[in-house]
Each structure stands twice: as structure tokens, then as C-alpha cells.
């Protein structure tokens, strides 16, 4: 029992430790001197030395890693190198809710689009609707998210003038304005995911619909909608949940791109700006936080199989 619980936790810890080491080492390889990046050129050597000492750049690499990790575990991610020189943690904490909201809205919208489409498609297996939906989702999967976003902007904002652009209203400042501004970015994220989910769920639904218990339900005179919702959906959602776990990585990616495209103040914009400015404490902190969330949510999804399919409870727990 202890082994079953402890081993995955230890492995998770090892992976996270490796990630933190990787992130740290990677960014200590940055060409150029961070002290020069902060102060700019043309200061006295004493000033550079003082700053290097203050940033701990004169210590050996492993000592610096230990210091950084120790700080991180206490919630101290260091300070930003680029003005405003605020704490990295504060910046991350103010950016995280924006990204989390976008990703969550995107995911929910994707499921809202995908589940009915997949049901419709699977019910008319091989028919015209099925084939068109399959072609459309295949095409959509070949569109990078920034192209989808640009297309949506071109059609919905520039031509039809339905949505505002390039602004963000925080959730605290009124939920109506917030939703209005978040809708288009979230839709961009949702469309790609929806295409993937539709294909997966449709395939599993088609398999389920050929099973005997569906035939039995049909023989008892239940309506197609009722069969779909109450009998077929749950046994068919197994692959969908697996893909949900895999798609979180893509979800993070498209959230980053969408934030950049719509200039929203989330984690993606934070990382990209920091990467462009060589602001390495910021990149380190943000990448580590994203990796922890990502690994954690994947571990949670791994555990959720038991809820869907009782047969796996023992085998996977």
C-alpha cells in the first residue's frame, strides 16, 4: 500500500527536481553577463562587481542552484532584472489567473462544442453530416492556433465588428466586461481542442453504439438522445479523458500564443517578454510554475480513470 502511493510521489518529485535543475542550468548558459543586462553598458567595474555579488553570480553553479531552489521552496523566486524590478512571484501571481481563466474557458467551450458534434456525427455514422464534420475537424487540426486567431479577428472583429480587441478586464472589475473580452481568445483556444475532442469521442461513440446494451436500450424504446446521454457517453469518454491529459500541454501552448496575439497580461506574455529581454529569473520562475501545474494536473487525470471505469480502480490506483 505504502509502496503503491509512495513510488509515484517519489517519481513525481524526481521529475520536478530534474525540471528545476534543467530550467536553472539552461538559463545560466545565457550568453552575456546578466549584470551588464541590468545596468547597461558604461558603468564602473565596481558597480558591476557589486551587482554580481548581490545577484550571487560569483558563487559556483551548484551553490547558486541550491540557493535558488531553497528560495523557491520558501516562495521567493527572486526579483525581475528588468524594470519594474518587482518580485517575480508577484508578477506570476497576477498573471496566472488570466491564463487559468482563458485555459479553463477554452476547455469548457471545447467540450461544449465537441460533445454534441461527436454525438451527432456518431449517430449518423458514415452519413453526410459525419463526413463533413470529419473533414472540417481534420482541416481545423491543420491550422496553427495563431492562424485561427488571426482569422477570427479578421472575420469577427474587423469585418463584423462583434468583439473588442486587445484589452483585458480583470474578473474583479465586472464579470460582464471580463467575459466579453475573454470570449474571442477563449474561442480561439477552444476551436483547436474541440476538433481533436470531436474526432476522439466520435470514434469511441461509434464503437460503443455497436454494443449489445445499446441495442437493448433501443429495443426498450428509449429515444436516441436519451441513449446517447445516459448510456453511451460515459463508457465512450475513456480516450477523451486520456487525450484531455495530453492536450493540456497543447492548451498551455495555445494560451501562450493567444495571449501574445490579443496582448493579454497572462503567463504566456510574461514568459515571452521575459525571454525576449533576457530576464532570466522571470523565465526560470514562470517555466517552473507552469511545469508544476502541468505535471500536477496530468497526475490528477491519471487518477481520475477510476471514476469513469470501476474496473481500473485496483489496477491503476
Amino acid at each position, binding site marked *: 500500500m505504502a509502496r503503491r502511493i509512495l513510488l509515484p510521489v517519489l517519481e513525481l518529485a*524526481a*521529475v*520536478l527536481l530534474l525540471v528545476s535543475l534543467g530550467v536553472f542550468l539552461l538559463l545560466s548558459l545565457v550568453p552575456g553577463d546578466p549584470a551588464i543586462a541590468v545596468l547597461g553598458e558604461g558603468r564602473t567595474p565596481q558597480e558591476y562587481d557589486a551587482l554580481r555579488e548581490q545577484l550571487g553570480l560569483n558563487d559556483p553553479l551548484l551553490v547558486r542552484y541550491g540557493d535558488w531552489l531553497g528560495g523557491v521552496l520558501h516562495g521567493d523566486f527572486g526579483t525581475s532584472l528588468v524594470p519594474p524590478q518587482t518580485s517575480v512571484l508577484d508578477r506570476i501571481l497576477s498573471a496566472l489567473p488570466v491564463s487559468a481563466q482563458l485555459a479553463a474557458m477554452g476547455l469548457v467551450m471545447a467540450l461544449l462544442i465537441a460533445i454534441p458534434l461527436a454525438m451527432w456525427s456518431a449517430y449518423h455514422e458514415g452519413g453526410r453530416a459525419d463526413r463533413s464534420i470529419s473533414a472540417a475537424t481534420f482541416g481545423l487540426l491543420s491550422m*496553427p492556433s495563431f*492562424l485561427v486567431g*488571426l482569422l477570427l479577428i479578421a472575420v469577427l472583429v474587423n*469585418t463584423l465588428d462583434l468583439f473588442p480587441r486587445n484589452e483585458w478586464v480583470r474578473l474583479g472589475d465586472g464579470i460582464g466586461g471580463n467575459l466579453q473580452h475573454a470570449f474571442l481568445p477563449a474561442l480561439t483556444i477552444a476551436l483547436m481542442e474541440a476538433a481533436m475532442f470531436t474526432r476522439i469521442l466520435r470514434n469511441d461513440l461509434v464503437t460503443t453504439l455497436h454494443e449489445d446494451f445499446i441495442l437493448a436500450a433501443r429495443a426498450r424504446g428509449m429515444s436516441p438522445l436519451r441513449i446517447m446521454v445516459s448510456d453511451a457517453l460515459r463508457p465512450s469518454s475513456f480516450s477523451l479523458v486520456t487525450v484531455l491529459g495530453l492536450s493540456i500541454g497543447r492548451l498551455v*501552448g495555445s494560451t501562450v500564443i493567444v495571449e501574445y496575439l490579443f496582448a493579454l497580461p497572462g503567463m504566456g506574455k510574461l514568459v515571452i517578454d521575459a*525571454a525576449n529581454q533576457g530576464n532570466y529569473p522571470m523565465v526560470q520562475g514562470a*517555466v517552473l510554475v507552469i511545469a508544476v501545474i502541468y505535471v500536477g494536473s496530468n497526475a490528477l487525470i491519471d487518477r481520475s480513470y477510476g471514476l469513469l471505469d470501476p474496473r481500473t480502480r485496483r489496477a491503476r490506483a
Partner: protein
Amino acid sequence: MLAPEPVRRRDGRTSLALAGAAILVAGLGLAGWAFTTDVVVTFVRMVLLAAGILLAITGLGRLFRGLLGRKVDVVFWLGMAWLVLVLGAALCAPLLPLGNHDDSVAGLTEPIFARPDLGSSHPFGTNNYGLDVLSRAVYGARTSILVALLAVLIGTVVGGLVGMVSGFVRGTTDRVVGILSNALLAVPPLILLIALGSVLEPSVRSIAFALSLLTIPSMVRLARANTITVAEREFVLAARALGAGRVRLLRREVLPNVVLPVLSLAVVMISVLVVAEASLSFLGIGIEQPEPTWGNMIAEGQSGVMEKHPFIVVVPGVCLFLTVFSFNLLGEKAQKRWDPRSAKL
């Protein structure tokens, strides 16, 4: 009684071909009109263009079915034709009579934002530095596809070998490889690329290296899983009983059975990497201007340029879409044939 049968079928096929040709011409006509006209607004033109293209594809399908007497996967063959065209153009780019693609000093004498005009010396127009958009799209294909192919090659060879060895040796090696590849998978792909991009110099070689890191963990997993199933089969046991060493077992018995699924994943990966490279360049972290890639060409359309000059985004966008679409078609076919287990999509 039986004699007229083939004639009538032949008749049906001719009329099918004729109808197909008519639909094809109508579709092409509609698309062409929508492409060139100024009468209706952009949005309606886009819808008409899409309808025209769909119509033309339907027509082409009927035409071939009529001519050949069997169903042809027109979309697949159109995709392959596009890939041949793009790869050919990318390979021969320096030999083609193309305009100026990256010399912004020479671009000073050219008109900026010239509208696309198929008859002029800039068939797809020029950008804000007076550089030729067609030429940039072709050279962009060169960079985009070169980077993706290089990365897939590195990823397949390294990931495939590591996965095979780890699945064959098992034990501690396997566990270490597992933790390492899990650590690589623990950072979302694009975030990993951005972190790498902030360190590496933006050149074709380093971007290809960064992208190959994305392919390695999934390659390792696939190769490992396949190796484990193959290694338990009787023919491996037989070879082992005959006295074959580990290297020989891996090379002669395991490799031939693992290579096809790995290759089919490699084909799928190409399109993923083309998108990843484009995203990176779009974010301004990948290949930098003035050297063109499809990603940074699309980025030129930001801050209001797209609204005034849609072709700046449309030309590289369509190239990117068609290429990814075609590689996806190819990947789907490859996976269905070589690795039916993982061809779930």
C-alpha cells in the same frame, strides 16, 4: 441481354466525367472570380472562394471517378501534389527566377505593399520593405521544412535508438531513461521552446536542435513500447538460443519490427514541428527577420497591417495550412498502414 451492360456503364462514366468537369470548371470559375473581384466585401469573397474550391474538389473527384472507373482520394493526391510543389520549389529556390527575398537595402527601390498582381514582377505583392512576397514564401518554405526535417531526423534517430535500447535492456537503464523523458515531457512543448529560444542563437541549426528535443520523448516511448512487445516473441528467443549477441539481436530482430511504427510517428511529427517552428517565429523567438519563414511572415501582419493588406498574412498562411494539412494526410495514411494500434485519430 447481357451485352448492353458494359456500354451503359461506360455511358454512365462518361456522363459522370462530363458532369465532374462541368462542376470543376464552375468551381474554379467561382473561386477565381471571388479571388479577383472587388465588387463584394472581403468576408463574402472569402466564403465564395472557399465554396468555389470545395466545388472544384467535388468536380475533380467525379471527373476522375468517371475517367478511371473507381473512387480516387482526390484530396490526398492534391495534398501530395502540393507537397511535391513546395518541396521542389524549396529545393530549387536559388535556381528559380524569383524576386528579392531578404535584401532590404535593394528593396528600397521597390514599391512597398504592392498589391498582388499575377501579371507583374511581384505576383503576390511586396511587403513593408519592398521585398517580394512570393520569393519570401518560397524561401520561407526552405527554412520551415528544412528545420522540421532536420529536427525529425535527429529526434527519430536519437529517440528511436534510446527507446529500443531501454526497452530491450530494461532494469535501471530503463528507469533512468523513463524519468529523463518524463522530465522532458513535464514542460509543455511551447514553453520549453520559448525557454530554449531565450538562450539559443536563432539559427536554423539551433532551432532544429530545440525542436528535436520535443520529438525525442514520444519517440522513446513508442520505440520502447514496441521493443518490449517484440522482444518477447519467439523469433527473438530463437535467435538468442542460436547464440546471437545483444547488438545482433537489436539490429537484426528488433529493429526491423520497430522501424515502421517509429517512421509513421516521424511523418506525423513533421507537421507538428512545422507548426511549432512557425509559432516560434511568429512569437519573434525563432528565425529572425529579414530571413523569411512562414511564421515571421505572418507576424508582419500584426498591428494593423493585416487589415489594410490582407495578402501579407494570406500568402504565408495558406502555404502553412496546405503544407501542414498535406503532411497530416500523409501521416494518417502512414499510421493506418504501419502502426494501426496508435492510429486512433
